[in-house]
């Protein structure tokens, strides 16, 4: 079986996000970048399926500049067999990325795509659903348990929804997006890094893929959201109840 796993390069979740003083973007100088955490979870799931079911062809793909090679190498070191960089310097949005991934999908013909539910930079939570629509295939989003059933023709998934766990069985091929409880991704090991050096990493210019993918969204300005001020400390539970009743009047 072949599984396609998109990996996005994003600022590490533990770094403090700083804005450029002129509001044109987020400061990237000196910022540590990582594989989008949900994408790492998606890749981990692909690797676990391989461990359980036998050899698979796991292909990681990233769309962006040369710098994304760093994240693809992490993917290879975790255990993916092959990496593909779709090179572009253009600003993209979820629909544009979905169109590019649809072209990659046509080229690679995977059995399914495992990807993150959300990129932690744009926090859009759209690409997987859009990709499924463009390909006319099914989707299972926010997945926290995944099992291949019926001779691997379907995926039985548990989905994390606002109202609780939902169960859905989706026909393959499909797009499956990972939620955080699906698994805990492995750390990259030294032997993994050594092996990764010999694995194929292909670079392809976006133009060569033949998709017109222009972002519809334009960010005009970035600013810090209004910040909350620290309030007061209360010495006792009694004082707290008094404040809530008589000052804030919320109880």
């Amino acid at each position: 079986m072949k599984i396609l796993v998109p990996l996005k390069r994003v600022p590490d979740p533990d770094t403090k996000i700083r804005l450029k003083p002129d509001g044109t973007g987020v400061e990237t100088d000196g910022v540590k970048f990582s594989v989008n955490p949900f994408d790492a979870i998606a890749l981990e799931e692909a690797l676990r399926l391989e461990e359980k079911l036998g050899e698979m062809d796991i292909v990681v793909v990233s769309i962006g500049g040369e710098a994304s090679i760093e994240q693809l190498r992490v993917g290879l070191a975790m255990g993916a067999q092959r990496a593909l960089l779709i090179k572009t310097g253009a600003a993209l949005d979820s629909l544009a990325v979905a169109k590019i991934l649809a072209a990659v999908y046509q080229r690679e013909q995977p059995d399914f795509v495992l990807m993150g539910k959300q990129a932690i930079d744009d926090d859009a939570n759209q690409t997987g659903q859009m990709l499924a629509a463009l390909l006319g295939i099914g989707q299972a989003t926010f997945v926290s348990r995944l099992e291949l059933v019926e001779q691997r023709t379907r995926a039985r998934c548990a989905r994390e929804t606002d109202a609780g766990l939902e169960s859905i069985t989706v026909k393959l091929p499909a797009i499956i997006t990972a939620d955080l409880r699906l698994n805990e991704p492995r750390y990259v090991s030294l032997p993994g890094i050594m092996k990764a050096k010999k694995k194929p990493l292909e670079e392809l210019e976006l133009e060569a893929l033949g998709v017109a993918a222009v972002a519809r969204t334009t960010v005009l300005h970035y600013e810090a959201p209004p910040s909350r001020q620290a309030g007061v400390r209360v010495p006792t539970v009694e004082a707290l109840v008094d404040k809530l009743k008589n000052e804030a009047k919320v109880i």
Partner: protein
Amino acid sequence: MANILVIAEHDAGQLKLATLSALGFAAQTAATTHGVYDVLVIGAQMGTTAESLRAYGARQVLVADAAPLQSPLADRHAWVIEAVVKQRDYGIVVAAASTFTKDILPRAAALLDAGMLSDVVGVSRTDDDLVFKRVMYAGNVLATVTLAGDLKFLTIRAAAFAPVVAGTTLSPVEQIPLPAGPMPDLAEYGGREAKVAGRPDATEARVVVSGGRAIKNAEDFERLVGGLADALGGAVGSSRALVDSGITPNSLQIGQTGKIVAPDLYLAVGISGAIQHLAGIKDSKVIVAINKDADAPIFEIADYGLVADVYTAVPELTAQLKQ
């Protein structure tokens, strides 16, 4: 100018309150663009649900009512939305952000080759277009964004838009026939794990009590966090730390990658205040933090901070509230 289609959300027919905020957004935006708005409800046996939507100023309440639409499956819901948008003239399709709408709206948007913005918290009008505000980077960044194209898909944060007020004129209800052609059949719904009944949903409650890593096990969570929530008639929530350790279900997680809440009162019980958690609570009116570490970052944003052990402070608080 551009007309708006609001997608209503319901749970087995029970309208989600956030829908009224999506209608509020629509009313506000339609007023500035001289357009009108319709509301679409999709499901099975939607008679009363449709009825409950008639008082909110929509030009029409559209109902796609059919047995195969009973389960919240994205392929079928997106297919209905696609057909409705193609038949009528809309410039905006909008819903309140939730796991349900985030599952179906991007799919419908791509079917119609439309761009989409998630979690919109503001809208204003320029000469020829709309300009939106949305949060990114775990709530660290407020972005001013435009979305090109004659058709725009949006999810809005319910807390950012005042719910529409019910009026006395009732909108007409129109049944939408199922789109022509075969119904998508890409997935099968297997049901939902029964939710623990009794407490309101954190996104709809006036008071939310959330527990963090300070809480050692599920019994303590129920006793301390649940007990305090019940004393206040509120909902419960939790940090990711408790979800990760299996003490609370994921549906309770509040934050960047969980639920976004904006109650009148948010009580953080033994939560440190990681940026990803704060992303989900910043719009609360009053935030209370109880934490034994006086330097915990949660105190930097809390209106009232109590440095104390939650195992003694919370039972005491619950007892005093019950008096």
